[in-house]
């Protein structure tokens, strides 16, 4: 058993691509090994800013021999065909065996293919991997035609301790690599993975990203603990920083006190966004005048110069931020609204000013459903986007909304309006906090519904994996806002109203998609998003489909109440039986309708019920159907279900005693109508045909 060690040394690999690249290297190489019939015990890949590495343990030094049986031509085939087969396999006729098969008598031959030396198979495998490597972006360099994420500098490839000769352009494989760029630039020769890893560590390169991550977190904690402070570890920042260093060295710097009165979000964003620094908080959770930077070196002065340099950069950044903060507050948000005509919302959907005006109108309408003063909702919606033209948000787009809140408060807007502005992008995804204050909910919904209807109008719906405008997230946002705040909102009506908010210049699109069609289609999209959302919470998606497909439900809260009642009912003994009976009835009717070419949806002839069981089923249905309809209309879903439960006994009895397909054609037709009626009665609650089980 032997070990394969591979390292691809290059110039700095973008941090965001590293984890995926390590996975891809492992996948592509092990796929190649498997395809060649080479088994192994374990494969692990590693990535640092400058290297991608792979070690595969327990590989055989030879490919296994393969015995393969091949069928040749028929014994009576033309001579030419037989000779061709022999030649193609390097055989003589006496090595072949005649065998009779159901298709006739054929020549057969058993070919033994000797396994190749594993090392000989590796160069091609490597080459294939290198050619197809799925970098999000790759480049050319110098005069060579090769592509890689950044210029390639070395290939280390050892199999069973020996160099596997391979090359990319002029770069040939060796048994050596180099250490840290500054601290250990010398060449390091290695014989196997253990040595590779250890020697790299001695040369100031920690190969394992996980170890580097832990080192950074540990060092940062140690530094802050000394001052009774805590570092705020932001995992995505930590992952990024881990990808920027081979030899991490966390350092703590000071933030000039004069900047500490800037909003916290501004400080943390300026640190994170431009400088990739971690924030530090005191025991009360308040931002401390410290930051943690992670260097990729161990400086000879213990990092004093590096800290001083970083502090100076941060001062410049914060001076910028302070300038923006002071400038921005010289103008009110209100005065900025008109300027939103210079910010595109979407080319075909006009400017953000257009959007803000539509949102203001829509927020007024929504205020009715969230139970809030319409003037308040309109005001917040009108100002919600105004911070987009502030210098702070132009510089730090991720502060949109947050800055709007600060600036609104500075303008003397009410706290409610300010909070609604801050909150209106939420919730962004299933795990994000969902607004609950009524104004916030109205504005947050207005923003999203406007986008959805607009993009639907110009036919920019999400397709497959493509959702450039994050419309799935917007729809989920609306769903969460409605469901978690238990709001009763008629979505179809709302979509149609918003459709009317778009100006006549969109007539072209409008003639393509009429309002009612668009509203319906968008509601179906909501149904899909709702299913995905609830699947994670364990709600059966078939029940949502069953209720949604009736087409009469666009109130999500009511819909969920109905789904819940249905789920409880189906879990009961009555429900389970009734579902079975429903399926049986629907099946029979479908089969017979197809056979006869007749639809049995006419009223049942009450005077033509021969058996007691049919009469009692008929009576049961006549009694239950209006009760179900009334209960549903009054949103008493449990009552609707108990009306359904009452049908179980007559339905079961009917199937026990009555033969549907009897000889008397009149009776048969009437019985089929009766069965069809079951479908109708149950259809008042849900489309049972969509229910699984």
């Amino acid at each position, binding site marked *: 058993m032997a070990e394969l060690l591979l390292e691809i040394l290059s*110039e700095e690999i973008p941090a965001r691509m590293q984890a995926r690249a390590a996975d891809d290297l492992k996948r592509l190489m092990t796929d190649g090994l498997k395809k060649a019939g080479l088994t192994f015990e374990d494969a692990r890949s590693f990535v640092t800013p400058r290297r991608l590495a792979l070690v595969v343990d327990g590989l055989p030094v030879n490919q296994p021999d393969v015995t393969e049986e091949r069928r040749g031509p028929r014994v009576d085939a033309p001579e030419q065909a037989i000779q061709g087969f022999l030649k193609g396999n390097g055989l003589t006729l006496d090595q072949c065996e005649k065998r009779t098969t159901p298709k006739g008598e054929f020549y057969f031959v058993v070919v033994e293919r000797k396994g190749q030396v594993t090392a000989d198979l590796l160069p091609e495998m490597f080459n294939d991997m290198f050619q197809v490597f799925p970098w999000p972006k790759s480049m050319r360099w110098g005069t060579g035609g090769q592509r890689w994420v950044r210029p390639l500098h070395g290939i280390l490839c050892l199999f069973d301790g020996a160099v596997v000769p391979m090359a990319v352009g002029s770069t040939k494989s060796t048994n050596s690599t180099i250490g840290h760029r500054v601290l250990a630039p010398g060449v390091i020769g290695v014989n196997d993975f253990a040595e590779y890893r250890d020697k790299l560590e001695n040369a100031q390169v920690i190969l394992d990203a996980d170890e580097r991550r832990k080192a950074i977190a540990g060092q940062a904690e140690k530094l802050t603990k000394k001052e009774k402070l805590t570092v705020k570890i932001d995992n995505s920042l930590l992952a990024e920083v881990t990808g920027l260093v081979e030899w991490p060295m966390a350092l703590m710097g000071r933030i000039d006190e004069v900047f500490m009165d800037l909003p916290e979000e501004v400080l943390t964003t300026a640190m994170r966004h431009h400088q990739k620094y971690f924030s530090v908080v005191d025991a009360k959770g308040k931002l401390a005048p410290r930051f943690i930077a992670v260097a990729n070196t161990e400086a000879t002065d213990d990092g004093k110069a590096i800290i001083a340099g970083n502090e100076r950069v941060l001062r410049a950044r914060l001076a910028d931020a302070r300038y923006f903060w002071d400038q921005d507050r010289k103008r009110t948000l209100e005065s900025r609204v008109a300027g939103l005509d210079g910010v595109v919302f979407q080319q075909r959907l006009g400017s953000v000013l257009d959007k803000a005006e539509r949102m203001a109108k829509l927020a007024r309408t929504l205020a009715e459903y969230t139970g809030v003063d319409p003037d308040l909702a309109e005001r917040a919606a009108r100002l919600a986007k105004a911070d987009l033209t502030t210098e702070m948000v132009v510089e730090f787009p991720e502060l949109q909304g947050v800055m709007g809140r600060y600036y609104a408060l500075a303008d003397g807007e009410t706290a409610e309006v300010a909070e609604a502005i801050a909150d209106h992008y939420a919730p962004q995804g299933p795990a994000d906090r969902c607004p609950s204050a009524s104004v916030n909910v109205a504005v947050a919904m207005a923003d999203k519904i406007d986008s959805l209807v607009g993009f639907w109008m110009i036919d920019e719906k999400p397709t497959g994996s493509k959702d450039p405008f994050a419309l799935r997230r917007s729809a989920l946002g609306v769903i969460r806002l409605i469901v978690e705040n238990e709001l009763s909102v008629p979505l179809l009506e709302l979509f149609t109203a918003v459709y009317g908010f778009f100006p006549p210049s969109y007539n072209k699109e409008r003639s393509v998609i009429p309002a009612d069609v668009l509203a319906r289609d968008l509601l179906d999209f909501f149904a899909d998003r709702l299913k995905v959302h609830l699947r994670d919470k364990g709600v059966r998606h078939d029940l949502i489909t069953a209720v949604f497909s009736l087409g009469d439900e666009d109130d999500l809260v009511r819909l969920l109440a109905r789904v819940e009642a249905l789920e409880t009912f189906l879990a009961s003994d009555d429900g389970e039986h009734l579902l079975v009976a429903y399926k049986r009835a629907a099946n029979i009717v479908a089969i017979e309708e197809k056979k006869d070419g007749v639809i049995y949806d006419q009223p049942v002839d009450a005077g033509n019920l021969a058996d007691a069981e049919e009469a009692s089923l008929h009576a049961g249905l006549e009694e239950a159907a209006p009760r179900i309809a009334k209960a549903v209309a009054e949103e008493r879903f449990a009552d609707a279900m108990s009306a359904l439960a009452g049908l179980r006994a007559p339905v079961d009895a009917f199937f026990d005693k009555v033969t549907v397909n009897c000889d008397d054609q009149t009776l048969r037709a009437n019985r089929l109508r009766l069965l069809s009626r079951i479908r109708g009665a149950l259809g008042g609650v849900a489309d049972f045909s969509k229910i699984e089980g």
Partner: protein
Amino acid sequence: MTAAPDKKTSFQSLILALQTFWADQGCVVLQPYDMEVGAGTFHPATTLRVLGTKPWRAAYVQPSRRPADGRYGDNPNRLQHYYQFQVILKPSPDDSQDLYLQSLRHLGIDEGLHDIRFVEDDWESPTLGASGLGWEVWCDGMEVTQFTYFQQMGGMECDPVAVEFTYGLERLAMYIQGVDNVYDLDWNGLPKDQGGLTYGDVFHQAEKEFSAYNFEHANTEAVARHFKDAEAQCGALLALTPPLPLPAYEQCIKASHLFNLLDARGVIGVAERAAYIARVRALAKGCCEAWLVSQGEGV
């Protein structure tokens, strides 16, 4: 905070040091292009020379203008006129990164004391139809250089690939001199009483006046008209047989700057903006193609 004047770290000595270093690497040391450009990349020594197969190495300072970045001289870090030091090596050598790091050492940046990092930053110029992959180089958290392997220029593939280093001279000097305000930079390394000048002495008034011009007083109608004229002239020069790519390219540069000025004046609507960029790109593309033909490397 004002730095003690020092001839070794003065702004001008920094430029001289870079020129010496890159001259030793076989670069032709050029002077700035005598037109308003947004970045050193616009100099024909980069835009045009990165195309085609002929090797090329050049280094030069390029004053760069970004009208929208003006702050009336009030902001310690933002300028509407600043200096870039531009290096172009074609084809990009295998030791591009090492050469670059040596240049920092040459400026007195000791790698043993500082943290140099290469942070992903791909570059794209929609007006030039150009793109490249590379990094911003950080020194102790400060971005000091844009390091780019050109992949495309004027919409055409670069083959061989050239590497471009764009040093932000003010930032680099602020870093080396340890000053927080660009206007405090020591320009010539002399004490004040012996004729010492700061960056502010040289440029502060210009920043104030040009900010006012860029944001308030540029006659937008005239600027828009000049744009059209430059565009028409560029087209006419490219339509000649044979075309005149170098004068045509000057008109393209002019159009690009005029567009930036209009943009700073805030008179360009959003849809219009995209259209302007496309117009400049079309000019740049035409010039690049004509240049290649003139080099006997027709498209």
